[in-house]
């Protein structure tokens, strides 16, 4: 009888413990804040791409209860400076580290240190030559390239000579965008007469474009594959006074390019969704840290905009990021 009683008591006690456990689990369900350090290529509020990306990151940080610290070197070219920040970040022992690698090769060693420390690594926008990351969020450059190609296709007729002002030779992004262009142009890909490289520098891009114009006076369409190439190419074409003869397609949505688009010098541009890139980067970081499902790779997306549709609300939404004051960097 006593035994029976004790059994009953034990069962009740276990039940109570179970309930308490459930209760505490339920209470703990409210997310603890997590620490994430993001090292972009640069922090520059005059650069639409980066300010929009950081704004997206900050919005996600607020939404997913992430304590987000953003640090960066002075210049996009200073990959050594970025590496120092990466090593610093490892020492801080955050829950996750996000990097927009400045250099495909130069950032590798530092990124390996992150991997070795066991801290989840998320690449945003650009990665390194080894697949070290837990997750990568970027524009799918092949798809972005096909958008360039599709825009081009609308603007050419048989025999129109096409030139591409690419950015950095042998960089993964340049190669992928080029592949996308060729894929979309299909049989018209043979009309590409020249590919030049602006080396992500306005002056260099302008120089190579000017040379191009001299070499191929009958060029009908120029496709630029990044911000620097596009602006440089436009400047060269403007200098040559040939903006009305040559169709041009740009990349990224800087104010300068938007204005070229308004002027009609650029006939179309492909924009990246940098806000989404930042947002998704932090979102995935939070998911990885909290053990929730996440994707190994996310395409943050891109879109093509033409002179004709740029005033439409849908295009405006893509061209001009709507960034609340609280997320501005």
């Amino acid at each position, binding site marked *: 009888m006593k035994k029976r009683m004790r059994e009953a008591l034990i069962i*009740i006690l276990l039940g109570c413990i179970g309930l308490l456990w459930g209760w505490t689990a*339920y209470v703990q369900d409210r997310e603890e804040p997590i620490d994430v350090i993001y090292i972009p290529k640069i922090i520059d509020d005059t650069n639409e791409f980066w300010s929009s990306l950081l704004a997206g990151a900050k919005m996600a940080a607020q939404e997913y209860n992430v304590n987000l610290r953003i640090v960066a070197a002075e210049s996009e070219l200073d990959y050594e400076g970025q590496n120092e920040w990466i090593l610093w970040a490892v020492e801080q022992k955050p829950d996750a580290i996000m990097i927009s690698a400045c250099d495909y090769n130069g950032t590798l060693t530092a990124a390996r240190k992150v991997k070795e420390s066991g801290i989840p690594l998320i690449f945003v926008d650009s990665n390194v030559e080894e697949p070290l990351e837990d997750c990568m969020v970027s524009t799918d450059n092949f798809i972005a390239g096909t958008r360039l190609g599709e825009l081009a296709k609308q603007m050419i007729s048989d025999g129109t000579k096409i030139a591409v002002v690419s950015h950095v030779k042998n960089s993964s992004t340049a190669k992928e965008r080029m592949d996308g262009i060729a894929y979309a142009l299909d049989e018209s890909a043979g009309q590409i007469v020249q590919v030049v490289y602006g080396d992500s520098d306005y002056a260099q891009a302008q120089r190579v474009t000017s040379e191009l114009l001299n070499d191929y006076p009958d060029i009908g369409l120029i496709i630029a594959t990044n911000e620097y190439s596009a602006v440089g190419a436009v400047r060269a074409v403007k200098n040559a006074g040939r903006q009305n003869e040559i169709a041009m397609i740009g990349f990224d949505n800087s104010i300068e390019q938007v*204005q070229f688009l*308004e002027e009609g010098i650029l006939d179309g541009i492909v924009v990246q969704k940098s*806000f*989404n890139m930042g947002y998704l980067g932090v979102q995935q970081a939070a998911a990885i840290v909290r053990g929730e499902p996440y994707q190994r790779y996310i395409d943050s997306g891109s879109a093509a905009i033409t002179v004709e549709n740029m*005033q439409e*609300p849908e295009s405006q939404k893509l*061209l001009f990021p*709507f960034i609340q004051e609280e997320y501005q960097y």
Partner: protein
Amino acid sequence: MAKHNFLSSVSIKKSIMQSFLVLVISTVVSFLVVSLPSTSHAVIRNSIDYGLRVNGLINDEIDSYIAYMENIATFVAEDEDIPRYLFYSLYAGENKDKILGNSNYSAVYDIDRESLFIRITDQFRVLMRSRTDIANIGIIYDEENYIFNDGADRINPNISPDTLHWVRETKQAVGGVSLSASHVQNLVADDYRWVITLSRVIRNPYTNERQGLFFIDLNYDTISNLCEKSAMGEYGYVFILDAAGNVIYHPKQQLLYTGLIEEEIDKVLSCGEDYFITDGRDGCLYTMSVSDKTGWTVVGVSYLDEMMETRRWITWTFFLTAVVLVSVAVLLSGFLADRITLPILKLRESMREVEKGNFEKASVVVTEKNEIGSLGNSFNLMTRKIQELMAQNVEEQKEKRKIELRALQSQINPHFLYNTLDSIIWMAESGENEEVVQMTAALATMMRQSFNNKAEIVSLEAEIEHVESYLMIQKMRYMDKLNFSVSLEEGIRECPIVKLVLQPLVENAIYHGIRYKNGSGTVRVSAKREGEEIHITVEDDGVGMSEQALQHIFDEHKVNYNSNGVGVYNVERRLKLYYGNAYGLFYESERNRGTRVLMKIPGGMES
């Protein structure tokens, strides 16, 4: 504890516990069943009310905000300087004569354009300084005639004002005032900010046509502040749509714009009620309030999950309370059952002891002062009474037996006494002095033994001495007719024996055995130890007994007047009374050969 007991005790306990549990559980369950759905319903209802109230407040604030801006617009737009400046080129210079007929404006264009510009920009500057939520303020007639902000901002050379949606809308609007949706302000060069534009037409005073436009671009400071401070729970939010379903403000406007997230805009516009609830894992409650003034819809979104958190909390609390109540019920019922069954079990134990006759252990310790306590007390009283009665009974039995024993105790037969005394007289007369002394001494020994009433038990030696004296007397009387021998084993002399049990046996042997025999007979008395017992045999070689006589040897009614009046029956009865049924007399007899009687008594048994 016996199984039988266990089951019976559990059945009481079980029934008590079960009733408790059924009572508590049914109460809790009915409570849950009744209250939880109603709390869920109430939570949603409250959230709807709350959402609508908040939306209404936001709408009111936006209305008054827009009204305020409209007042500014009206105030500015009615300033005569503005049409003068905007349409200056139309009527100044060579066009001046066109308006000469209009006396009201005869002097108007005497003021130079520069002064008008300064006056207007001063006014704009003041406004811009006083309001941080004004992104741009401006007037425009065409690409040439406009003032933006402090006058330094230029028009976007690539934009024709009349192609802009908000410009066209305002010029066509009834009343000439309109509020745009969110749009990028690309009229002002290098601006490209997202704004909401409140614009008002400015009529050309000469043609009365809507040719000019005054506009104020509102940034999102005020509206986002309004929406953000109106909490819809921790995760909920507020967004605003214009009448056409365009997003005016959304906390995740950019994600919405880039298509990363979607909002239930169609449902908001089409649902026709002031709230709806979306399905799915992240079910949300949407509450809508439409402003009559702006035509905007303020939509509050709160997550059902979050709303139900309170409900879940309540549920948990209910369940915890239920568990605690059930535990308490189990403990309480167990305790109650124990309070009832344990004393009863103790009583049962005591009763078993009573059944076994162990009255000493039967008493129950009574701690309770309730019904069961009184039952225990009664039980104790009862067992005590029984015990007393039994003790009394034993005492009475003892007394009775004593009396009986005494009654059964053989007396010296008066005939024997007379005969002996006659013999003494006769011997004295014959001068046989020695024999007289001998017989008298033997008689004295016998009488001492017989009359000693105090002792019920004597030593075996004394008993043997007594029967020897008797035999000696009889021997003197019967002379050669009787021979006897008495033997007593060493070591049992001091063994106790009920007194006066041998003499009747010897008497029987003489009177029934030897007396009818022709010639002399012998009586042998011997006592010896036989294991735990002492065996005393009285043997004679007299006539013996028939089978029939042997069978009736212990019959009570067999009284022989010639004997001393107490027969074998009495001896047997006394032995059995005293020593128990295992002891007594055992006769063997054979006709003409003699009789042998064996008396078994316990050896070394104390009195």
